[in-house]
């Protein structure tokens, strides 16, 4: 996208970065993709990776997401099943096993999905996070097993399950075995459904392809982060198919809400209280600020107002 800041980004920034590289971590400065404004990385990090000022929601890595979601940043890291490596023996310019190795080194994660259990405003919740930085959050066998494990963990512990989706879709290098994660995760989702435990999906930027066409669109409640790209086919594919320009805001969170596909678009700062409130309501847990035992449930009753 062309912004007035582009000439600075292209000309000045690389020089500054190469000068600073020696003794400072990379990403010292971040450019807001929406406004082009340069912001200090620490400020963004301290703001849950939302750019102060523009409110643009940056991608969030899985460990940071879990830490920000659970009370005091503390959670139990759920061990995930190992899966066969490179069943297709896939290679193009690079062997798939090497791509995996690189992604593991880059992210410090074994694959794209991380699962944790902890408390959110005092309520125990199981959460899974898809990490877009790991091969585009793609849904391979490892990610599929991790999502299944997330559902199973919620089922065993009798907790709600919250899934933060972010994915380009299938892991192409695992071919049909990637596609099979769609019915596999759906089997697991069904079990949580039968157990009457809440399943809340948070759609983050971007969530497309087989992930949307399976567990990410089967939530009891769908929450989207502002501006998130959410869809089945990617915009490039659609444009190539219909050879037309796509409408403004197409496949963005707000557009999906307008078309009835998500329940709410929620700023990242408000996610935690919103999810906690929903989980409490759906599991009939007492309201967070309710006076315990001695005053039996006046708070929820008072909240019910006849429709105006």
């Amino acid at each position, binding site marked *: 996208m062309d912004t007035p800041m582009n000439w600075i980004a292209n000309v000045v920034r690389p020089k500054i970065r190469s000068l600073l590289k020696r003794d400072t971590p990379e990403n010292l400065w971040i450019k807001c993709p929406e406004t082009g404004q340069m912001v200090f990385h620490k400020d963004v990090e301290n703001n849950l990776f939302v750019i102060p000022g523009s409110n643009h929601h940056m991608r969030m890595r899985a460990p940071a997401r879990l830490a920000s979601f659970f009370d005091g940043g503390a959670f139990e890291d759920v061990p995930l099943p190992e*899966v*066969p490596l490179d*069943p*297709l023996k*896939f*290679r*193009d310019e690079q062997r798939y096993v090497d791509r995996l190795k690189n992604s593991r080194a880059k992210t410090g994660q074994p694959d794209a999905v991380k699962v944790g259990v902890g408390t959110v405003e005092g309520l125990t919740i199981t959460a899974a996070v898809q990490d877009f930085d790991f091969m585009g959050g793609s849904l391979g*066998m490892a990610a*599929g097993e991790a999502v*299944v494990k997330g559902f199973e963990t919620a089922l065993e512990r009798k907790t709600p399950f919250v899934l933060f989706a972010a994915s*380009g*879709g*299938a892991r*192409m290098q*695992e*071919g*049909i*075995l*990637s*596609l*099979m994660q*769609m*019915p*596999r995760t*759906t*089997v*697991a*989702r*069904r079990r949580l459904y039968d157990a009457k435990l809440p399943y809340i999906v948070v759609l983050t930027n971007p969530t497309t*392809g*087989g992930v*949307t*066409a*399976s*567990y*990410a*669109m*089967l939530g009891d409640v769908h929450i989207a982060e502002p501006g998130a790209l959410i*869809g*089945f*086919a990617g915009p*490039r*594919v*659609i444009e*190539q*198919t*219909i050879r*037309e320009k*796509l*409408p403004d805001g*197409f*496949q963005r969170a707000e557009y999906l809400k307008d*078309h*009835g*596909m998500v329940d709410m678009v929620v700023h990242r700062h408000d996610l935690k209280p919103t999810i906690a409130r929903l989980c409490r309501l759906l599991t009939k847990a007492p309201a967070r600020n309710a006076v315990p035992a001695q005053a039996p449930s006046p708070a929820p009753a008072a909240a019910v107002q006849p429709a105006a």
Partner: protein
Amino acid sequence: MKSYLDFEKPVAELEAKVEELRALGEKGDAVAIGDDIQRLEAKASHALSELYAALTPWQKTQVARHPQRPHFLDYCAGLITDFTPLAGDRLFAEDEAIVGGFGRLDGEPVCVIGQEKGSTTEARIRHNFGMAKPEGYRKAVRIMELADRFGLPVVSFVDTAGAYPGIGAEERGQAEAIARSTEFSLGLGVPNVAIVIGEGGSGGAIAIATANRVLMLEHAIYTVASPEASASILWRDSGRAQDAATNMKITAQDLLRFGVIDGIVGEPVGGAHRDPQAAIIAAGKAISAALADFRGKSPDQVRDLRAAKFLAIGRSL
């Protein structure tokens, strides 16, 4: 008129010679030419079976998309009596990319659903080349719900390059429609059998292919995304479809080895398009045999077996 694929050229040449000799024979000289014809015919049929015994994944892709390959409605006409299609999702529209309804297989009432690509230009447009929109999948769910309630097994014929990627389809929730259809298939208390008769493309296929038994025709393909889409995603170049097909293990033989499908239905020599009737009969037998395995099972058993089967995929590679 017969149409040949590029790689069938040697066969095409031999068969053309046979035709030439036949034409000559009709003008006279029949005795001398008769032997030649027989020799050439034998040679052509040998060449054909050799060729089809060792098709590459890309060649199979071409066979799976052959314009004369039997499509869903051909199977329906050949196998299903009393076929009564239903229409509409009761929400938005009728989508003819997916055809579905009720009929009898071997005399027994069944629910039949399938993607239809169309066999003439007009039909291809009407059926949107077998690429369904959300209303197609929602119609499938509606029909499966009827099947479940009335206790009729579901047979689905899979033949699509994928779900339709368009503005309207996205607006109306293509992803959600596919996810619901997959979920509904998994929850059926009646047994279901899916057979990939041509192309099983991506989520658009999965939506109706999540079954107790999944079968594939010998030269059908089943992919995470069509070879063109795969190449576009992997290398931003849909022109490398052949590379994608070669790399991605999309043939029935590979998928059986991975435990993704449960059986392969043999095709006539030279592919289903050379003898559609034989292919249709073979498919019918395989479907009936698969359904027979679930006779007498309770709805819970049917559901549990299906769930366990899918959960096991990939766990013992």
